[in-house]
Every structure is written in C-alpha cells, then in structure tokens.
C-alpha cells in the first residue's frame, strides 16, 4: 500500500505541533491518529484547523481506558481522517470545548457528556441528548464500571 501522502501529512503535522505530540501513527490509508496531552488539546486542534482550513468534524468518540477517558474528535480534511486523542482523568473528566471553532461539534460533545460524563468547558448547552429523562444523573453507561442493569418489566407476561 502506498502511504506517501499520509507520511507527508504526518511530517506537516509534526512540524506544526512539535513536541506537543506524544504519539502519531498512520492507521491505514487516509487515517491518521494524533495523541496529545489534555492541556494542549484545544491549541493543537486550533493550529491544525487553521492551517488546513478544516470545517468538518465527523464525530467525537469517548472511550474508557481504565483510569482515564480518551476524548477523540475525528476531523476530515480532503478525504483524510485525522483523529486526535487526549486522555482526561476519570475523577475530573473535563476538557475544553471545540464548539467555538467547529460548531458541528455541539451534538457530539453532548453525546460524549451523556454517555461518559466528560464535562466540556464552555459548551453552550450540555442538556441530555441521548439518554432518557429518568436516567440517574451520575451514572454513565459507557464507563467500564457500569454493569448493565436490564430494565424491570412493568407488567407480568
């Protein structure tokens, strides 16, 4: 597989972000993963967005990896998928919002907030989006410590 374009892209990102990157890898053709620290998260994304003129954020994934939660916005640039990854501690899950530079992130950040309890500083409205109204407010279903509780039938069959 020819990954010339991806390699060039990676070197451009490296040049731009310098030592802020803790890890960068090419997952496959047209998909790049960039790991940054949580405090550099917004700055580095802003640099990339401004350099390449990115407007499209495909989605944002949150993943529980033990002690930390990985926040992963997936940006699109000319067919290339750039996935940033920043780990926030589970006990103080907080990170800057991207909604001011990428307004499309509004729904995705609300979803991550609902399901993993990551607080996005500066988000305009973090009301419930996907989970039900009667869901307890401190339970986050996609965290690993949440064990699935099947809903109780309300009438006998």
């Amino acid at each position, binding site marked *: 597989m020819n990954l010339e374009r991806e390699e060039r892209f990676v070197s451009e990102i490296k040049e731009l972000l310098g030592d802020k990157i803790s890890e960068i890898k090419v*997952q*496959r053709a*047209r*998909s790049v*993963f960039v790991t940054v620290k949580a405090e550099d998260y917004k700055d580095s994304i802003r640099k990339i967005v401004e350099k390449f003129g990115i*407007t*499209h*954020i*495909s*989605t944002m*994934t*949150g*993943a*529980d*990896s033990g002690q930390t939660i990985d926040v*992963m916005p*997936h940006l699109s640039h*000319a*067919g290339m*998928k750039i*996935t940033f990854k920043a780990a926030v501690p589970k006990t103080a899950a907080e990170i800057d919002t991207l909604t001011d530079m*990428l*307004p*499309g992130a*509004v*729904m*995705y950040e609300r*979803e991550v907030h609902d*399901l993993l309890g990551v607080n996005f500083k500066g988000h305009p409205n973090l009301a*419930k*989006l*996907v*989970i*039900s*109204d*009667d869901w307890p407010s401190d339970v986050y*279903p*996609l965290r690993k410590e*949440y064990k*699935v509780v099947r809903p109780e039938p309300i009438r006998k069959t």
Partner: protein
Amino acid sequence: MPEFSVIVGPQHPALKEPESFTFWVDGEDVVRAEVRIGYAHRGIEKAAESRTYIQNIPLIERICGICNVAHTICYTQNVEYLYGREIPRRAEYIRTIIEELNRIHSHLLWIGIAGHEIGFDTLLMYVWRDREVVMDLIEEMTGNRVSTALMTVGGVTRDITPELATRIRKGLDILEERTKYYEKIASGESTILARTKGIGILTREEALKHCAVGPTLRASGIKSDIRADDPYAAHDEVPFDVITTDTCDLFGRVVVRVYETIEAIRQVRYCLDNLPSGPVRIRLPNTPPRGESVSRVEAPRGEDIHYVRSDGTDRPARYKVRAPTLGNLASLVEMLTSKGDYRVRVADIPIVLAGIDPCMCCMDRTSRFIEPSKGKEWVWTWNQLRKYGRMRER
C-alpha cells in the same frame, strides 16, 4: 406578539420514528427550533462490548434497518482493518452491488415519503410499487427483503450466480426506466415544485459550518462523497459521478437523490459486468490483534463513521457508531429557523424534516413545558405529570 411553542413528536403522523421537536412560532413563522433525540437510544454501543465480533454483525445491522448494508460494511471493514487483511476482490464487488441496491431502495423510499409529506400520495403509491422490484432483487440475493445479513468479517456469506446476475440486470432495466420517469415528475410537477423550491434553505456556508453530510451537503453545492474521497470496497474502480446541485433547498435534495439512484443503477451494472472470479470470503481468527481503527462508508443518508478499539480479546473494548442523521441534526435546526427574508412556515415543517431523510426514533409531548413569556422551561417525567394531575383533582 407572544411566541407559542408547538411540539411535534414523538408520535406524529409526519414522523415515522420517535423524535421530538419543539418549535417556537410567531404567527405562521418558526423562529426557533429545538430537537430532543434519545427515544431510540437502545444502548447498542454498550451491548457491542459484551458480544463477540461475530455476534455483533446482526446487532450492528439493526442500528438502522434501511441503511443496514452501510453499517455492516462499515463494521466488517473496520474489523478487517484491525487484522490488517484485505478481503477477496469478488467479495468487495458483491458488497458494492448490495450497497448500491440498498441505496436505490432507500432513495426510492425517500422520494415516496417526500411525496406523502407534501400531500402527493399518488407519487408515494407509484414509487413504492416500483420499489418492490429492487426489494425482490435484494430478497433473491440475500434471503430477506430488508435486513441483508450478507456481510461477515472476511467477506460476504453468499455468492452471486450467473442466473441471479441476469435477473438483477433485468430488474435494473425496469428500475432505470421508472427512475427516469420519476426524475421527469420530480423536476416538472407543479405540486412538487411549489412545495420544495425555496423551502428548507441551507446555504453552502451553513452546511459547512454545521457539518452536514450526504445528499443534504451535496444539495448545497459541496462535492463531498466518501465513495470518492475515501474509497472502500470496490469504489476505487467503479466509476461514478458525485451529484451536486447549487439550489441549496429541498428541490435540490430531491434532484440529488433521484440522480444518485440512476447513478447507483449504473454502478450495479458495472459491478455485474466486471465481477472478478474467486472466493467470496477468507477465514480470519476470532480475536483480532490489539489496536484501534476508524472506518467510513457513504450510507444513503451520508457519511457513516465507526470507531473500534480492540484489547486483544474476542470482544471489542469500545465500539462507536455515528450514523449520518446525527450529523445532519444541527443543519436541520438551521433549516427550520426563519432568518430575514427566509420564512419557515408551520406547514413546511414535515417536508423539511423529511428532507434530511431522518433515521432516528422520537415524541416529547409529555415532558417539556415552556413558558416563553417568563423564559422558564422545565422538564417533567410522565409519572410526575400524572401525579400532578391527581393532585389537582383532589
């Protein structure tokens, strides 16, 4: 003039699925719209973590019944990326064929539903009659009309015999003739023109800003299609045109979908003519290596993106799905807001809603209370409301 709020959904004749919209109206004009989804939240992502990669295929297929092929292709190729293996070329072609047949069925379905929403039921009935042709083709190919269950990790489960290919070609001829007729109707019938031109406007800048996807984005004049930008399956070989219009309104969305149907028919023909020989699946071990992967597919409604993380066991550590409709929600809210000269009337709500081809599940009549005069808004559950009702009776 005081503003009123109109609540549409979760059970509403214009919506086939439960989702709830709150519209603040000033006379006939919608001034603000808000959406509450989550009625169809079933917990698939959590369930995927407790099932094996094989068990997950039917689960992922049932994220959406209409674009089930897009989701299963996205899932299986995502897992194949984890293995770092390529599947046989014939399997990729079969995936493309079924994907495009699925797109034909989805777009024809949408044209019918759009006709229904603007009060043109004749179109609904005729389109759905002709759609049965493609449903029969899908059924012959996969054994079920809607859920295909054709994908598996490492290829596809069923092959295409030459007789089946002949039958598909015959069916495509009928479909092509009929779609061309509907193209004429969609672009020349005064009912459709009156209800779609200048309605549901999403300008190029807004579409980019709110990250719209799929036909909604292409109708705003932006050439973006995952099949061309990030080719998967056999799309790197199958020639096709990315259809765009610059009308930025509902009419553009109708036109884009009709032409995409014709384009899809052409792609299926190409695939059938150039179907490589060979096996249709390879056997892969049950546990993929550690790693993570992102895969993208152009579903009938737009970009579908899945993320998988494997921790070296036979179950995924995290599986994330973003279906195209969520990407279009922010733009939908934008389309439903009157700005300056652009007015959204209450009567246009159903067709604008249908315009993005929503694929979710919603209705919130019981729980949200709004008093715009006091700027107060609160949420009650149905049980709380029932209690309140009993309290008032006493």
